[in-house]
């Protein structure tokens, strides 16, 4: 651009170092801008923004009730997103966590209804989670093989496999697996009582899955940052060429990445079936889009399993708090999406500004 005798150039420069202070300020700034923006939307809708935000926060983290529900909703989110962190650090774009969750639900439901019925809970429940892990891992390994052996983009294959899995679940519940105790409705029978996950009294928090989620987040953090495998994952992500020269087996690493990422999502599916629904039902019921929301929370957590634990919890709170928008504020359900969308937009934009710097240069010709 010309301005008199000056040449102006505008561009982005990658910020190499992010101090904790800068990160904190960015996040605060982003949240601040987001809240003002959301507040304006509320004003526009004729609702007192302070009252609205207060209601949303009481509903998410400002009351015991809110915490209970935020945790319940957070379990699948942080489980899945901690697994996605591993995949995304290797730049393996797994968009299929939704279907990996469903396949985990399918495998564990089958196990619970057939083999698990005659097992004790101490054996049956861990095996059910193991089956869920296998189900998700199996579904995750397919795109890994397709990518490495046939060069098929994993974005496409994982995305498309979501539809395959959803149709498969629909087929099972209206066809061969349709329950005999459900009056012709498309659900499987309930899992045997002794295999249902216990909940913290007075809540819907299935504590086995919650504990698993916390442990897995920690383990994956250690795996990524403290082991050779984690190093390899990150090298593969940074530069596949360098990985090749360093003797890293790309195929083997990709397989493991998807076994972990898919398997963990599959375990989230076990939690939803055995902890919340107690049977397999419509795919849209088993997962309220957790596999997709977890993509967001993985990125919000900076692809760090521990970070995604926090962001998963935070996002669950937003989803649960969103109920207040409908119930207490009498606004349509779509407002919840606007609210979530705005928060997401500012948080991701904040991340961008944290990693990049706007450079404006003024040069005399």
């Amino acid at each position, binding site marked *: 651009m010309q301005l008199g005798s000056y040449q102006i150039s505008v561009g982005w420069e990658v910020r190499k170092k992010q101090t904790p202070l800068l990160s904190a300020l960015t996040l605060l700034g982003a949240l601040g801008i987001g809240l003002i923006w959301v507040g304006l939307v509320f004003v526009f809708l004729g609702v007192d923004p302070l009252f609205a935000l207060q209601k949303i926060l009481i509903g998410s983290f400002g009351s015991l009730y809110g915490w209970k529900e935020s945790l319940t909703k957070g379990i699948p989110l942080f489980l899945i997103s901690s697994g996605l962190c591993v995949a995304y650090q290797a730049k393996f774009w797994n968009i299929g966590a939704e279907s990996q969750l469903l396949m985990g639900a399918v495998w564990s439901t089958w196990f619970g209804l057939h083999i698990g019925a005659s097992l004790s809970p101490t054996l049956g429940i861990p095996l059910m989670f193991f089956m869920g892990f296998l189900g998700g891992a199996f579904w995750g390994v397919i795109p890994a093989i397709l990518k490495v052996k046939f060069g098929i983009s994993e974005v496409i294959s994982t995305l498309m496999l979501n539809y395959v899995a959803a149709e498969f679940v629909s087929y099972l519940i209206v066809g061969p697996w349709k329950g005999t105790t459900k009056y012709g409705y498309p659900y499987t029978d309930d899992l045997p009582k002794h295999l249902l996950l216990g909940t913290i009294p007075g809540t819907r928090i299935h504590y086995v899955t919650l504990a698993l989620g916390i442990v897995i987040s920690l383990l994956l953090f250690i795996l990524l940052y403290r082991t050779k495998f984690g190093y390899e994952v990150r090298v593969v992500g940074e530069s596949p060429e360098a990985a090749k020269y360093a003797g890293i087996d790309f195929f083997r690493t990709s397989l493991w990445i998807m076994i972990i990422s898919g398997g963990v999502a599959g375990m989230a599916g076990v939690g939803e079936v055995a902890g919340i629904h107690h049977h397999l039902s419509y795919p849209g019921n*088993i997962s309220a889009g957790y596999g997709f929301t977890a993509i967001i929370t993985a990125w919000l957590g900076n692809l760090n399993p521990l970070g995604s634990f926090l962001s998963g919890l935070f996002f669950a709170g937003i989803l649960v708090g969103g109920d207040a928008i409908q119930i207490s504020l009498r606004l349509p359900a779509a407002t919840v999406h606007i609210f979530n969308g705005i928060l997401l937009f500012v948080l991701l934009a904040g991340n961008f500004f944290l990693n990049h710097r706007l450079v404006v240069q003024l040069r005399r010709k």
Partner: protein
Amino acid sequence: MKKIGSVLIVLIIVGLLFGTLMGCGGKKETPAKEAQKAEQPAKKLKAGFLYIGPVGDYGWSNAHDVGRKYAQSKLPWLETVIVESVPEGDAIRIIDRLVNEEKCDVIFTTSFGYMDDTVKAAEKYKNTLFFHCSGFKRAPNLGTYFAELYQMYYLNGLMAGVLTQSNKVGYVGAFPISEVIRHIDAYALGVKEANPKAKVEVRWIFSWYDPAKAKEAAQSLVAAGADVLAFTEDSPSVIEVGQEHMKKGKKVYTFSHYSPMQKFGEDSVVSGQLVDWGPMYVKILTDVYNGQKDFTNYDLWWLAAENAALLGGEIGQPINPKFVDLLKSKKIKSKDLGEMNAYDYVMKRYEQVKANQFEPFTGPIKDQKGVERIPAGKKADPAHLLSIEYFVDNVVGEIPRK
């Protein structure tokens, strides 16, 4: 790790901020709320409604919301709260909120999938009344209600039978559950009565709301020779397919489903099924208001007789005026009514079902395999209809099963 640290710091700061915000204006839950409720004179009633879909859909949830608004307009002491698009797994959370935060006296859960959560909630909140739509589990504070349309499907079938030229009548089905199977059977019984040669061909789409799939299924039925279409799906897609063909000069008649959809296909929609939940909500809420306490045997199953099910694709028009003359030029014959023109015949049957003088499911009724399901002269009882899992003999297509 640094990033995590900073995230934590921010979360703490934000938490503190909100803590103060809430401290300023937050209303604390008090344990005395139950007592308060008991002291209040029973002058006002607050009802909460859970909907499975958005109220702006063109089917189930919208129809319930129209009913709620009707009740609101009729009952000055009524206050209502709605929550739309509630996934089945989240029902209990929303109920908690409606009871604890909104202090609802009555809660309506309007999807079969909410049943178990509603039962749990009824156990948990003994002082709140629950009404579950389409379920069968009841308790002292939990009643059930349903508006059933099968008689209308039967009447639509009569018209479909006389209108088809190809003797192939199509049906786009949502899910192969008893409710939909019952509707297809009723429709097929109507078709058979008017035209014993015609067959009903079914396509499943495995979704309650999927305009693209419904359209595809309708197109494939037309391609297979069907020239009359009825359906169960919460959008006017099937009607739009009929209308497009009509515009191109190919006759494809359709029947509107659930909501008044005639306006989406003026040249194609002959009639349809309409639901009216309004009077039912008024009845339930009035019973509650008048002090009924025990709802263990409260099971409303409303049909044409109670005006919960209406004939037509547009309110006040049982048959699209455009097709009245066409129907008058056709004939239907039966043992009990003799021969009449199709319009009068349908209207006569409509009068009969409204007066509970005629049951479409009267034997002999055979299933697709030729097995007699209802013996000659016998009428199906509600239990038979509720759990029906077979197609009658003039239906082509399968019920997916084991």
